[in-house]
């Protein structure tokens, strides 16, 4: 991947779903590649179950925010956010969404996480799916690979074996659903 690669991704959900954690995994994967990265996060009161959105900009950017109509992709942990955050996408942008009813780019991550016995791992299930899902002409959607994010996860959860095992399982279950 070239030095001038640019990717802008919006990650959306509700407080408590782990939007920040998923964003951070991708941002660290960018740093591991030597790419400049910006993220912007929701903190404070909205984290108490309110609508939460993260912006991730990989490449030579100055501003931490993505403008509407500029995002390459939307990773949506809560389908109800699509009307609010879908307009971040540019016309050719892709969406990965946690939705029980199916459709292009969707998976039932709530069910997958519950089946794993880890209902709070929805964020990693969706992230695993986004990392493995094929995009246009079979090219990956994201700037980094599943293996790279797994390495970030290994590093972040080093020494916490059971948490790491559960997180890896969730990421893989999402990837397998793609």
């Amino acid at each position, binding site marked *: 991947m070239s030095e001038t690669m640019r990717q802008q991704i919006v990650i959306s959900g509700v407080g408590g779903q782990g939007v920040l954690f998923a964003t951070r995994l991708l941002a660290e994967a960018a740093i591991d590649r030597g790419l400049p990265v910006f*993220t*912007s996060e929701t903190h404070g009161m909205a984290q108490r179950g309110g609508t939460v959105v993260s912006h991730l900009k990989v490449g030579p950017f100055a501003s931490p925010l993505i403008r509407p109509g500029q995002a390459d992709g939307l990773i949506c942990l809560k389908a109800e956010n699509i009307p609010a955050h879908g307009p971040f996408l540019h016309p050719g942008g892709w969406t990965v969404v946690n939705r029980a009813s199916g459709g292009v780019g969707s998976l039932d991550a709530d069910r997958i996480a519950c089946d794993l016995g880890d209902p709070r791992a929805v964020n990693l299930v969706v992230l695993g799916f986004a990392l493995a899902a094929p995009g246009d002409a079979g090219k990956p959607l994201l700037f980094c690979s599943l293996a790279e994010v797994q390495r970030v996860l290994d590093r972040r959860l080093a020494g916490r074996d059971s948490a790491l095992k559960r997180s890896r399982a969730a990421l893989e279950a999402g990837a397998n659903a793609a």
Partner: protein
Amino acid sequence: MTRKLMMGNEAMALGLVENGVGLATGYPGTPASEILAAVAKSRSLRTDPLHVQWAVNEKVAFEIAYAGAQAGLRTAVSMKQVGLNVASDSLMSAAYMGTVGGFVVISADDPGPHSSQTEQDSRLMAVMAKIPVLDPDSPAAARRMTAMAYTLSEAFRIPVMLRPTTRVCHSRQDVAVGTAVETGREPAFKRDPLRWAATPKFRFKLHGELEEKLARIAAWTETAPVRHNPRAGGRRAVVASGVAAAHAREALEALNLWDALPFYQVLQPFPLHADFIAHLIADYDEILVLEETVGVIEMQIGDLHRTQGKWTGSVPRVGELLPEAIVGQIAAFAGRSVDVPQLPAVAGRRPTLCPGCPHRASFFAIRKAAPKGIYTSDIGCYTLGLNLGAVDTVLCMGAAISQAAGFYQAYRHAAKPPPVVATIGDSTFFHAGVPALIDAVVQQVRFVLVILDNRTTAMTGNQPTPATGIGVGGEALAVVEIEPIVKGCGVGFCRTADPYDVKSFIKLIKEALAYARETGPAVVIARHPCVLEEARRTGRPPGPPPVVTDACDGCGFCVERFECPALVMNADKTRVTIDPILCVGCNVCIQVCPKGAIEKAKDR
């Protein structure tokens, strides 16, 4: 060099530590909350002493850090913008007296507002105090500006404000990791009562000195505005500061105007450099000024016939300056007509108290015990008691108690005065509640104060309180409990109970109301730990969700009055189900259901 993903607040903390801060204090408040804990974490970069502490409020935090700077150390205090209001008494005076060691005041603003009562601009507080202020555009810039702030502070012996906004504090960026430093500084307080304890006559002299300092700072090259695109020409220029400058840079590129419009970034919005003002007036007919949230730069340029900004009304005065708005502003300024996509106004999901939150049980009990009450409340997670109809007023830190007193006095001679029930969190009680409670005792205000004691400062990310006996770095400290303070204030009725036991808790509040009606202030301490903090501390998985039986007829009482996100009404409104992902098994809803239709899960 190794790079690390760093939040703006962590980058500022690193900047403080690598520039030799010897004493750092603060009070948590979004978006500034993570700075101080990050200073404590970076302590390993230092071989010499570094004292880091949360203080009981911003004024106390400010004064501790300021005294350290009087003693010659480099010090810092961090807070959010409304916290600076609390510390403003100290700030105004410290500006006159000046410093010896470098003193950085970090006051984080929250345009939007995302998690604040106001969109006030701390830079205006710097103008009022007459101290310089720096305005970073990114985490990396915020880190560099801490170094700049210390140099400036020591060159002119003046407190320096660093004013990040939410988009700096809560952005993350790849930042080079820090290296170890040793300052070799020793405290050396020099007695100088004419300065450090100046009487009004000498304050006049200090004020004169301060004005001279400001004039020299307005000519100091190290903080001068930066011209980013020297190739651009013409009689129109864009001037921006803070994160608006970062947005403007991308907007100029996106609009292909980089080589068309001269673009200046102001690093030090006050005092604005005198040469810069002269240059703008001499060389440009029209100047677009992009800054948050008030026109601090624009008012110093001082020619509203030339500027387009907050004062002229060309740039919106309310809300955050989002990048799409800045694209629109710059395009219009350049005479371009472009279609800038906007986000639709979609009502998002409102925040709620967490499933299992003990505050929910307290609010439910308060409404049951005093259904016709006036409910004053305060700043914290429990502001969300709004959703349960148990919060009528929220003004600012500590106001629940004084407002309760005001409502009592207002209704005192009414035929049927309503009961007044105030709610305040443990940390907020320590912060600003105690003086108000003393006043209420003296005035014999007949109200009930419920102190929602969840043993933490939850809203801002679970910082310790004086009652936890834990410091910012996890170190053991002395404990100050709430009960002896309440009793020491002279309150005759002070009882502590667990709100999870809803029935007993309702009874206790009724007792408190009866006492208040006859005698004076009654205090109930609702003590149950924050579920988030408890889960983190113990690592225990949540308990099994209770079971909804066939006795549920979908009356909706629990959904409306208890408002737990885990209680979900089915589509045809005939039955409530419990979301197993959200439920933490607190079982409080069992006591709430009027039909007895929720039962404890059978042991498996």
